[in-house]
């Protein structure tokens, strides 16, 4: 339970700029494969900036890098990541007859890999 977190994907300027340039270049990949985690959560889970974590949702698994954010910016239990290929892997497929998969409120399990 304590490793289940809520992941909020969203747009960022870096991701936006990267997307214009090319989705196949390093900047875009960097921008979309770094997850922000609350520093207290990181300490609790024994994570440091830059280490790799595995995120598992009901629909997929991805490995990304992590970086810490202060509690004022990101409350415990919440993680943020820029839109990109990893978020698509985690996103739900059921739209509950709305056409919209839940894509900004993903329950994911977190595991350190390196």
């Amino acid at each position, binding site marked *: 339970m304590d490793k289940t977190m809520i992941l909020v994907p969203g747009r960022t300027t870096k991701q936006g700029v990267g997307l214009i340039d090319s989705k196949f270049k390093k900047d875009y990949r960097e921008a979309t494969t770094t997850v922000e985690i609350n520093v207290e959560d990181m300490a609790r889970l024994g994570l440091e900036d830059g280490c790799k974590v595995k995120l598992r949702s009901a629909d997929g698994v991805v490995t990304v890098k992590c970086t810490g954010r202060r509690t004022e910016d990101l409350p415990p239990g919440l993680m943020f990541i820029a839109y990109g290929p990893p978020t698509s892997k985690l996103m739900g497929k059921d*739209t509950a007859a709305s056409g919209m998969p839940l894509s900004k409120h993903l329950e994911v399990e977190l595991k350190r890999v390196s």
Partner: protein
Amino acid sequence: MMRVAEKAKSEGNIKIVEDATCTFCGCLCDDMVLTVDVDAKKITKAKNACVLGKALFLNYEEEDRPFALIGGKEATTAEAVEEAAQILANARFPIIYGMSDTTCETQRKAVGLMDMLGGTIDSTTSVCHGPTGMALQGVGESTATLGEIKNRADLVIYWGGNPAESLPRHFARYAVTAKGMYTPNRKKDRTIVNIDVRHTKSVPVADIFIQVKPGADFELLWALRALVKNRHVDPNIEKKTGVSMKTMKDLVERMKNCRYGVLFFGMGLTMTRGRHFNSAAILSLGSDLNEYTHFIATPMRGHGNVTGADTVVAWQTGYPFGVNFSRGYPKFNPGEFTATDMFVRGDADAGLILASDPGSNFTQAAVDHMKKIPMIVLDPKYTHTAKLARVAFTTAHYGINVPGTAYRSDGVPIELRTCLDSKYPSDEEVITAIYRRVEQLLIAKKRSKGANNKRQKAA
């Protein structure tokens, strides 16, 4: 092919194009001053553009890519049109999806193509503010063009959106630091509120930040509606939403007592638990407040011309997105005729992706199905979807090479100027060519069917 009176000065190979429009985001800023090196085919300066707009213009280069790819092999546009038309004419349940980054002129033709084919048409709206479109059908809305907000709004509330990073000039042009008729002192004449689950880059400009617990937006909205109407609210709401009663009441007082209030909301509401219920709640809150003052509630839309897509599909069919023509007339059913569902369920047997990249931003299950069926892609860039497509067209950039119309997120239509020619065809030209060829193929098909029937009868 300039359609707007060209507003350009030239000196040698340097051309200045004034009042061009940036199509990167829903702000659709039409005050770009572009310096163009005609020989190098580069835009060297984009005055007034934000960081995203600069990236769009300054990174522009005429790609050195084949006109088209069929099965990954180089092909001419004409060959690709033939292949695409064959795919569509032989499909039983094709879909067109995307449309948010192309002109209305293209969108109009695309809907016509699907009308003829009896397929499905959907835009990126279904995974953006589609739920808001559904909410509108239930509760209506109180909306305004952005200029009215600039001129009058003294209370601006951002909810579940981060314009600082997704609509960078929203603050300066329209709602925070913009100077308007009754807001001559800009930000001093306005109170800015930000409501979000996290401290985004949009929070610093706000006078008040309210942090709501993830997934509790609906509860907070509903409590605010109750408080606006002076109804009792269970104090447990504080625990549920993470927002104190005092904060809620203060916000309600501000909303009721402002002169002209605005609720701008983002996908923090439409993409989370509650979806269209969240949108309906915030639209209703906006409408309710008109008992006390003038109030607006309006979505912030992302892509350059996503609003145009809803607009065109609605005027041609009566419905904003997720429209199917297989019975010979338009039917609307989100969850059935929306792209994610069509792909995830495996319904679509061919897809035409117009200026969008679901191959990279759709859920994996949808992408898996796209890989199984013949896909056609029109895009200036090589995308993840192009990579998995059977036919990929390289097309010219709208707003740079191609003129036409785009609708700002508030419904104001803007005519795009061009600054550089392209050797690639426009989306509109490709769709038109596909349309003509599909029409021929369908007529031929019908004739041979008729002939078959006759033969059978004779036998």
